[in-house]
């Protein structure tokens, strides 16, 4: 018996007058890894933002259920504390706020939601040290202002660190692999693999086969013009790598 984490049915959404998501449907069950691939400008990031509850998008039709709850009724922070994580393509800098302090707030917000005791500074630092070491993140980086002057690779590793700390039920990884060198990519992929288990799920948005060679998806979806045009397994991604999107999008 499959337990759904995310159920999107016939979703359409727009930003201003522009309809970006068109009749999109996708169900993600516990334990599954889904990959979403598509050409630039197909609206993959928009989909991720809509799921995470970013303002400025209007859902015009369809429904989204997350762990059985109506996602549209939940504020972005409620979605996050309930277990929806979005690793952002362009993580934003927040001057003046130290990375460690930010992460502590995030972890404790989730613990509060789960009616767990909030971690004090010592307990949190212990947790942080273990997780950051696994991602090769130096202690010095955690003292810096979050994402301020971080390299592309540092930002991505920090996103994965946050995912590890927050232990989401569903992690949406929006181009978690972009701008990473081979070593960094391996570290990020390991971090993601270590998170994954039979009770959570991943939605990986990517352009590249490299990441999918390290995190094997159960499903690969080709996303174009606001919805999924083809679903397959990892072979589909390999086919894409070879021939590009041409064969899939021309029929549209």
């Amino acid at each position, binding site marked *: 018996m499959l337990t759904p984490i995310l159920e999107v049915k016939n979703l359409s959404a727009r930003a201003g007058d522009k309809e970006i998501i068109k009749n999109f449907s996708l169900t993600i069950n516990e334990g599954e890894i889904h990959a979403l691939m598509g050409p630039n400008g197909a609206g993959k990031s928009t989909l991720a933002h809509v799921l995470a509850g970013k303002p400025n998008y209007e859902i015009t039709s369809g429904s989204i259920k997350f762990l059985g709850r109506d996602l549209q009724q939940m504020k972005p922070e409620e979605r996050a504390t309930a277990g929806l994580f979005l690793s952002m393509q362009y993580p934003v800098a927040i001057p003046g706020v130290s990375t460690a302090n*930010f992460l502590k707030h*995030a972890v404790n917000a989730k613990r509060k939601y789960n009616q767990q005791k909030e971690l004090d500074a010592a307990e949190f630092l212990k947790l942080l040290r273990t997780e950051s070491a696994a991602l090769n993140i130096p202690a010095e980086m955690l003292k810096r202002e979050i994402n301020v002057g971080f390299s592309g690779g540092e930002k991505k590793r920090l996103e994965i660190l946050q995912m590890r700390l927050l232990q989401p039920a569903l992690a949406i990884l929006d181009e978690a692999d972009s701008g990473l060198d081979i070593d960094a990519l391996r570290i990020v992929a390991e971090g993601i693999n270590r998170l994954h288990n039979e009770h959570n799920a991943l939605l990986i948005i990517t352009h590249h086969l490299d990441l999918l060679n390290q995190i094997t998806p159960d499903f690969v979806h080709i996303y174009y013009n606001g919805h999924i045009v083809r679903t397959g397994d990892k072979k589909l991604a390999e086919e894409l790598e070879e021939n590009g999107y041409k064969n899939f999008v021309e029929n549209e």
Partner: protein
Amino acid sequence: MTKNKEILDKLDDKYKYGFITDIEADTVPCGLSEDIIRMISAKKSEPQWLLEWRLKAYRYWLTMQEPHWAKLSFEPIDYQALRYYAAPKQKTAPKNLSEVDPQLLETYNKLGIPLKEQEALAGVVAVDAVFDSVSVATTYRAQLAQKGIIFCSISEAIKDHPELVQKYLGSVVPYTDNFYACLNSAVFTDGSFVYIPKGVRCPVELSTYFRINARGTGQFERTLIVAEDDSYVSYLEGCTAPQRDENQLHAAIVEIVVLNNAEVKYSTVQNWYPGDKDGKGGVYNFVTKRAACRGINAKISWTQVETGSAITWKYPSCVLQGDNSVGEFYSVAITHNCQQADTGTKMIHIGKNTRSKIISKGISAGKSNQTYRGLVEVGAKAENARNYSQCDSLLIGRDCGSHTVPYIRNRNKTAVLEHEATTSKISDEQLFYCQQRGINEEEAIGLIVNGFCQEVMQKLPMEFAIEAGRLINISLEGSVG
């Protein structure tokens, strides 16, 4: 003498009619006149020289105009409608906390000022609590006295140490200084007095809490701090005021004298009633704070966190007379709803090798307006004067305003003056990022704002910093959505 007594008796009659029973306060009638000033002075059993000084100030004040150069707009203040003296009714001055009216103590407890607790925590903080105009409780004075430190209300200082008060009162802020300082000089009712003798480091943080309570009572405190050669003191001033509908005028003076190699740290957390969402009510805060570094290597450091008041007009200043003296100003000002603040500092370099530093962080939310106004002045003889100024503004929402007005007057070629200024906004992207990690909007704003102010908050004494951090979050509640 007989004539004086007659006048006083007559005034006392008037005072009986003017007595407002429902607030149980010992007050004088509304309005301002020489008679009122004489009455205040008499009530406080002041020496003749002080009465004369008050009267000179009053007569000078009559020739002055309320200043309107600040970027503030408010209804005209009717100075004759204000009451210039109110003291909690008490027959004799309390000798210790157990003699203090339990209701007063209760009010302090509600405001989070646990005097009793503080007494129990012996030696942590000495508090000279000012309720309206008269000091009601002073703790730890005996311990401080052993080191020769005087920490008492200014009224007591006038009685017990008249030579010190007479020597320094008005020496940093003369009564001719400005309209509000002049008014204060005429009618000041109480405040704190601190004297640190030569070579003494004050072992505790000295602390005063002010509170404005009596309805329609102007409060005019006067604080005088004198740090003799080679001495050190850290002084904390914290303020809260209960909710009131009418505007309350507050025109205080803080004067600080710093002598050779002495250092004074003065920290303020100001949390007076800012008025309601529509700008109704709130405290009008017109304050003159100034420190004179009179000796060589003297140092003064002002740290302020301003979150309250409907109107703030305040420029804590440093007069760097002694060679090598240092002035610092660290400020966080938060305005929300309809609050207005025109605040900054003045660094007056007179001596050689004098240095000053200004770090100002302004946060505007709601429909509030905030102006940083600062002056850096370097005199002809101030060889090698240095100043560094940094003024950062953070805007929350679309309806607030932030302005930076730095004045620089330099008359010495060797001076090096630097000024940096930034203006930023909390972006939707930043808020969304926080929310996506489970941090709600209000917490996110608190986090971002606290980060923005960190440089200044670090300058506050520990226990104050925690309170101030909490206050910042409370002050910005409802600034989104």
